[in-house]
Every structure is written in structure tokens, then in C-alpha cells.
């Protein structure tokens, strides 16, 4: 009994000494004992914790990824929705811009009775340049009504029904508008070519025409009010053997991007 008590006391003293030794060297990087304990603890820790780490990693990398995948899909959907929303906002912005331009145009031309309309359909052939709009006789549209947009002349109405009208664009080969060059008042006839450009005909080669000159409606024939912009001169060919110059115009209106248009009412002075 006394012997065993002595052994216990010696063991406690030894343990206390070890603890003292350990605590004395705990800030010493060169302490081999401390290092061994740490290294041993590391191995022990790894052995004990590795199965749990394995399970945890498995959970994080595979099982938990199911949620991540779902989150990813939801984020993708959300991203797609935001992109669509962004496109819609962009469309609304451009529509707003277009409507603002139309309102500005209407405010700037109080002398005209303007009837707004939108494009419904375009010509089914590549050759002709006509379009159908969503307003007809019930909205005040009539045959030969001038059609414009804020940039200039678009064309005129050639057929009308209760709720739709067919318009002949100025680029159609059947279109002819009396016109004059704004700066020099030289008169001519603007005809469509069926392509992107217009032709100014019956202008003598000796007349004063320069590239960049604006061409406007002259008001003759009484269909178009005078002073509406049609296009500007982009090419002049003069042949000494011909009486008239070959003049090509670029239309002021981008015919490929027409959306909103106006019909000009009858109560307008059109004569030159």
C-alpha cells in the first residue's frame, strides 16, 4: 500500500516535471520535445479526424453540390430573366425616344393636322416598296394622304380601307414627287429606284446643284405640303450630250427602320 502510494506520487511528480518542461519550452521553436508532441498530435489528429473529414468533404463536394447545382440553375434562370428584362427596358427606351421625336415633330408642325400610325406589314416582294399601316379611313386617312416621320417624307397613301391603309414609299419605282433643291430652288421630280436611293430628274446639267444639297417637296400637284425634307444629293453625273443631269439622292428617312409615321391631314396649304 505504502509502495503503491510512493509510485503514484512519483508518477505525479514525473507528470508535473514533464508539464513544467513542456511549458518552459512552449515558445521555443527549437524545442524538440514540443515539436515531437505537436507532430505526434498532428498524426493523431489526422488519423482520428480523417474519416470525419472524408465524410465532410464528400458532403461538401458531392452531396452538397446538388444544392449548388440547383442554386446555379436558379441563378441562371434569374440571370436570363434579368437579361430579358434589360432587353425590354432597352426596347421601351427606344420606343420612348421614338415617341418623343414624334411628339417633338408634332409640336414643331402645328400648321399640319397629323394623324399617327404604325407599320403593320411590308411588301411581300423584294421589288416593290409599299407597306400596310394600322390606320384607315375611320382614323382620317385617305388616298394620296402624305406620310411623313420626324426625319422627312416616307410616301403617300395609295389605298385605304376602314382600319388599314397601303402606303407607297418614296423609294418605290412608281413614286414621283415634285421637289426642289432647298438652297437654290431648282425644281425637279424625285423618283424611286426600287433600291435604297432616289433619283432627281429633269434638273438641267447647267443648274446649280452640289453634293449634300437638301431636296424638299415643292408643293406642286397639291399632294405634299411644300418644304418637307425628302433627301440630300449624294451623286451627280453630268454628260455633255444630255440636257439633264443624273442626280442620285439619299433619302432622309431610313426606310428600313420605319416604325411610327404620321399622315398629314387635308387642311394644309400645299401650293408653292
Amino acid at each position, binding site marked *: 500500500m505504502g509502495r503503491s502510494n510512493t509510485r503514484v506520487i512519483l508518477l505525479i511528480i514525473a507528470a508535473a516535471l514533464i508539464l513544467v518542461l513542456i511549458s518552459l519550452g512552449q515558445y521555443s521553436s527549437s524545442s524538440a520535445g514540443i515539436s515531437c508532441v505537436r507532430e505526434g498530435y498532428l498524426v493523431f489528429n489526422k488519423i482520428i479526424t480523417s474519416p470525419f473529414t472524408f465524410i465532410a468533404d464528400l458532403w461538401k463536394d458531392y452531396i452538397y453540390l446538388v444544392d449548388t447545382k440547383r442554386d446555379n440553375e436558379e441563378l441562371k434562370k434569374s440571370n436570363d430573366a434579368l437579361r430579358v428584362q434589360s432587353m425590354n427596358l432597352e426596347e421601351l427606351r427606344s420606343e420612348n425616344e421614338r415617341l418623343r421625336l414624334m411628339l417633338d415633330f408634332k409640336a414643331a408642325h402645328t400648321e399640319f393636322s397629323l394623324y399617327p400610325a404604325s407599320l*403593320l*406589314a*411590308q*411588301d*411581300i*416582294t*423584294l*421589288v*416593290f*416598296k*409599299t407597306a*400596310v399601316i394600322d390606320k384607315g379611313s375611320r382614323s382620317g386617312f385617305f388616298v394620296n394622304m402624305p406620310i411623313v416621320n420626324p426625319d422627312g417624307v416616307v410616301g403617300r397613301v*395609295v389605298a385605304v380601307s376602314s382600319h388599314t391603309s*397601303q402606303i*407607297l414609299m418614296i423609294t*418605290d*419605282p*412608281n413614286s414621283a414627287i415634285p421637289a426642289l433643291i432647298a438652297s437654290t430652288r431648282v425644281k425637279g421630280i424625285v423618283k424611286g*429606284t*426600287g*433600291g*435604297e*436611293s432616289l433619283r432627281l430628274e429633269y434638273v438641267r446639267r447647267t443648274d446649280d446643284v452640289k453634293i449634300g444639297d437638301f431636296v424638299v417637296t415643292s408643293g406642286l400637284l397639291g399632294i405634299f405640303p411644300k418644304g418637307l425634307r425628302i433627301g440630300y444629293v449624294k451623286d451627280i453625273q453630268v454628260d455633255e450630250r444630255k440636257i439633264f443631269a443624273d442626280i442620285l439622292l439619299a433619302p432622309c428617312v431610313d*426606310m*428600313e*427602320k420605319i416604325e411610327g409615321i404620321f399622315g398629314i391631314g387635308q387642311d394644309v396649304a400645299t401650293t408653292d
Partner: protein
Amino acid sequence: MWRLQISLFGILFAIVLMEATIIPSIWAPLRVDFFIGMIIGQIIYIPFSQGFPFVILSSLILQAFSGARLGLIPLLYILTFLAIEFLKNLVYLENTFTQLVMGIGFYLALMVVTAIFTDISLFEGKAASLIIGALLSGCVSPAMVYTVRRLQIAYE
């Protein structure tokens, strides 16, 4: 018979929507002709007594969406119908490749004839849209033939 004809006219209005509104809104100078494929389908699968009146009525409807002189569009499509009816005896029309080639060929022929009638230069700034339009018309022709065939089988 009536159900088939009503369905065909329903498809015709879908064609107008595509040709006159949707495709020009994507690229303004582009025109794709879906009707040529329908004509080929009519010739192969529908009796002449039903197909010919359908083409006449349809082309009159299509005339409403063109600035061409009144009667020009029906004339061109009736001539197309008669030409394909004649070719039926010479070419095996049920072949997809043949339908594709005929779609391209007749699209170009219709545009050239229209340009000649109206004295317009067809290639001034339009060459790219003309070629793409012809290729797309060729591609949709077999699909339209298939649509007519499916309708004919469904209502037979």
C-alpha cells in the same frame, strides 16, 4: 375537303405574317417565299380541281400585301403553278432536294420576271438579300410541302 381548305388558308395567313411582318422586322430587305413550297405541295398531294382554285384565291390574298400592279402577283403564282404542274411529268417532285432546288429557282424566276415587268434593276443594293432570300425560300419549300402532306393525310 372544306376542313383541309380552311386549314390551308390558316397556314396562308401565317405565311403572310412571316413574309410581311416578322421577316422584314428582322432584316428589312429580306423576303422569303413560303408560298412556292405550298404550291409544290398542292400539286403533289391535292387534286388539280382543289389546288388550282386555292392558288388563285391565295395569290389574290397575297396581292393585298404588295404594291405590284393589280393582277401581277396572281398571274405570276398561277404561272408558277402551271409550270410546276408541267414539270410534274418530267421531274420526281417528292424528292426533298428537288423541292429545295425548285424553291430557289422559282423564287429567283419570280423576282426577275417582276423586275422585268416593272423595269427595275434587281441587283442595285439587293444582291445579298436576293441570294439569302432564294436560299431560305429553297429551305422552307420542303417544309411547306411536308405541311401540306400532313394536312392532306390528317383530313383524308
